[in-house]
């Protein structure tokens, strides 16, 4: 496993929080990535969302290169599971009205009970899924 990285994790968290702050102060909107992608497909504030997603790619690429590619980033499941997981993440996030960023970061910081419930459910189910796929059936 990779070593625990409290300092990098805290700095990364602050940057993600600042992203939510900037987006809210500028546009009065929450930063939910699944909603951002869905909106980029349907047209509500399409330009803003596309620019945000472009910025996300540029920011990630900039840091990754700047840090000298500190870790090899490789997928943790094989086909066809990666496709099944992608479908579930996309559909589930929209059905539930948000993902780790929309419910997890923005919803919790807005003290939304609905987001708290969603966050507890998806964390719980994900922990259970990891337990089953890594320790019971060894996917």
């Amino acid at each position, binding site marked *: 496993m990779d070593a*625990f990285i409290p300092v990098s994790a805290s700095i990364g968290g602050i940057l993600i929080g600042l992203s939510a702050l900037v987006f809210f102060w500028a546009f009065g909107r929450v930063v939910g990535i699944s909603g951002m992608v869905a909106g980029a497909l349907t047209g509500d504030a399409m330009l803003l969302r596309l620019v945000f997603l472009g910025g996300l790619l540029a920011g990630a690429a900039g840091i990754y290169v700047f840090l000298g590619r500190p870790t090899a980033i490789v997928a943790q499941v094989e086909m066809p599971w990666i496709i099944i997981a992608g479908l579930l993440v996309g559909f589930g996030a929209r059905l539930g009205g948000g993902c780790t960023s929309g419910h997890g970061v923005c919803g919790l910081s807005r003290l939304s009970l609905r987001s708290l419930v969603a966050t507890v459910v998806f964390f719980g189910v994900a922990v259970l899924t990891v337990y089953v796929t890594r320790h019971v059936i060894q996917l």
Partner: protein
Amino acid sequence: MSSNFNTLKSVIAAAVAGALFGAGLAVSEMMNPKRVIGFLDFAGDWDPSLAFVMAFAVAVAFIGYRFGRRRSRPFLDDTFHLPDPKGITPRLIAGAALFGIGWGLAGLCPGPAIASLITADGDFIAFALAMLVGIAVHLVVDRLAS
């Protein structure tokens, strides 16, 4: 939508917010699915990093929403666009549960799924495309249902 929506200021603010988010995912290594699964795997070698990311992100965003809402409107739009409170519905629970299965399977949620595309790795491209299909399926189902 505000009339000044298409201005350069809006584009810069959206790009800065996006870049901060992407940089945060890269610095914290949350775009690496191994890290995420390391957090979700309580029965393995547990890696608490993700909890630190969430805690600090929530703390900063909390301050952002608290002070941001003191204004009558955002800096670059006419009104706030906060999600409507819809209560705790079966959809919310079912969606969060399906999302949790996918997230646990691959260790990728939407932000990292997009950030991981910078590796140009086929597996991540496949995941992102599948996620896009999942989002599109929901858009269609939602439209047919309403």
